């Protein structure tokens, strides 16, 4: 696990590169450079400010002094968590995760219910030969809009003859957002429970449906000796191998939105694009701000649970406008948080937002 005190606040030279790449600074009261400065001099920090951060990691990637401003945010939030002084909505998410192992407080016993929507039985991981685990995010397990994604991916893997299993109600929140909210103890509990399950069932590979889950299990769970991949990486390979055929033409102009936790944080840029480029009659467009500089949807780092106090134009709206300017009728993405944050403004503008798995289901 990464050290919590990973930040190097004292070496900051206040160059401003962090603020320059931040999707929140300058548009909301949040300013990462100012918070780092305040942390340097141990000045008081206004209570609401740290919660604007989306944990997109742009600041940390851009910093020339390796200050890791995004880790400083986690440290600040962590102090607030230990004092018990955090926004009520964040508090509810944490308490629900403690009790039900998901931030929405939905029953753990229903975590695997999505699998009942399949026309075939998905085995428990213990019953599989290759010990490949399909790991769903909490939002996939409980949100009606996102529940279609595990159903799609499971259907696609099954069609390609790619054996996999699930944990069902034994699965618990990965803790990616919990760590970024600053609840270190809870993150450790979730991680320990998941790792214990992985060990008990001899998991060899984890196919994460969400980039957020993939990120924390790959980079923050320590050396588990388990390969962790995003589902687009697996499906891209299956298409290349011919195991999954994308035969039906799809008359569409699709633009791909890089999720921060998949793209800039884990450098998985090509597999989703390769999938889209394999589709017949599809024009694949690119955002001006794509790949490493992709604009964050504002769903990460606990922002899904934080009610912002000031009105401002959301990144989702900007993204949808940019997609239209690029000539796309559909925004494709591979993260449930991006999907949720882009869909509302997209509906207003009359364009579609689809998960890559939804697009694939249309062409197989």
């Amino acid at each position: 696990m990464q050290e919590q005190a990973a930040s190097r606040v004292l070496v900051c030279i206040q160059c401003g590169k962090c603020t320059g790449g931040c999707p929140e600074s300058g548009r909301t009261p949040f300013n990462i450079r100012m918070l780092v400065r305040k942390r340097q001099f141990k000045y008081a920090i206004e209570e609401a400010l740290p919660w604007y951060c989306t944990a997109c990691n742009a600041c940390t990637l851009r910093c020339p002094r390796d200050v890791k401003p995004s880790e400083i945010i986690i440290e600040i939030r962590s102090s607030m968590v230990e004092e018990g002084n955090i926004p009520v909505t964040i508090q509810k998410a944490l308490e629900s995760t403690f009790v039900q192992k998901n931030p929405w407080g939905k029953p753990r016993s229903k975590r695997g219910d999505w699998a009942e929507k399949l026309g075939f039985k998905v085995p428990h991981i213990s019953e599989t030969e290759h010990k490949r685990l399909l790991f769903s995010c909490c939002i996939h397990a409980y949100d009606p809009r996102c529940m279609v994604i595990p159903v799609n991916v499971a259907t696609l893997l099954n069609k390609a003859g790619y054996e996999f299993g699930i944990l069902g109600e034994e699965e618990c929140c990965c803790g990616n957002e919990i760590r970024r909210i600053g609840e270190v103890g809870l993150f450790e509990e979730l991680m320990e429970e998941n790792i214990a399950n992985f060990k008990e069932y001899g998991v060899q590979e984890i196919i994460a449906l969400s980039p957020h889950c993939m990120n924390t299990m790959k980079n923050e769970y320590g050396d588990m000796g388990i390969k962790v991949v995003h589902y687009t990486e697996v499906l891209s390979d299956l298409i290349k191998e011919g195991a999954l055929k994308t035969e039906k033409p799809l008359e569409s102009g699709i633009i791909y939105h890089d999720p921060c936790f998949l793209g800039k944080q884990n450098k998985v840029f090509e597999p989703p694009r390769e999938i889209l480029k394999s589709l017949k009659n599809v024009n694949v467009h690119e955002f001006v701000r794509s790949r490493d500089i992709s604009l964050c949807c504002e769903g990460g780092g606990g922002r899904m649970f934080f009610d912002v106090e000031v009105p401002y134009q959301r990144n989702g709206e900007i993204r949808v406008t940019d997609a239209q300017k690029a000539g796309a009728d559909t925004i494709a993405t591979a993260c449930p948080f991006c999907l949720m944050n882009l869909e509302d403004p997209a509906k207003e503008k009359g364009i579609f937002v689809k998960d890559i798995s939804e697009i694939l289901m249309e062409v197989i």
Partner: protein
Amino acid sequence: MDIIVLTKRVPVTQEEELKVAPDGRSVDLSRVPFRMNDWDNYAVEEAVRLCEKQGGVITGVSIGDMESDEVLRRAIAMGAKDGCLIESQTVVHDPFTRALLLKGFIEKENIPFNMIFGGVQAEDDQFGVTCGILAAMLGLPFASMVIGIDDIQKDTVILRRELEGGIQERISIKTPCVLSIQSGINEPRYVSIMGIRKASKVERRYFKAEKYLDGGAGSLIDVTRWFYPPKKEGAVILQGELDDACKQLIGILKEKGVLQ
């Protein structure tokens, strides 16, 4: 100002599909998570806030099996100094018996207090009378549905109660006293896992429930049967495609005179 706070560990059943055991005598809670009763959470927070201002010691008290230790750890993490578990292997549904146990425990163990706080009711059995019965047994004044503690004087507390119809009542009550605390009186603080881990190092005290019944009444109320309410008739499920179902619905609404 020393305060005893009553805390109960309850199942989180809001989103669960509860199953009654085949014998009808219990509900299967084997897959249901538990937590501190929500009302008690507010009671602990209110006690902590008062003691932070006025000084004093908070003692968390719970009745239940050893699993109930988790709500005492939470109370300590919030600011209680001590936690006491009245250990009972069987579930004590009867609020009279619960009050009897609490009275016996508080008196026999000489737990110091100026006030006793409990939640208005427990999320599981919802009797809402334990605090009132306890006050009567101890011969102390009692106020229910407390939504604000405005002032604490030498031997009097000024507080607000919530009445029906949105009316509030301000009363003074002599101490020592028993108060049942309404949810919403404050915003309970977040208790971190690190905080709970630290609280685990604070020694809790465990007492056997049998000690406090004095050979007196066991449960005056017992659960004889759990059951689902009978399904009512009269609902019509509209069949067919969406358009057909909508046409049928409009027809029914017109027929009933709801839609002109």
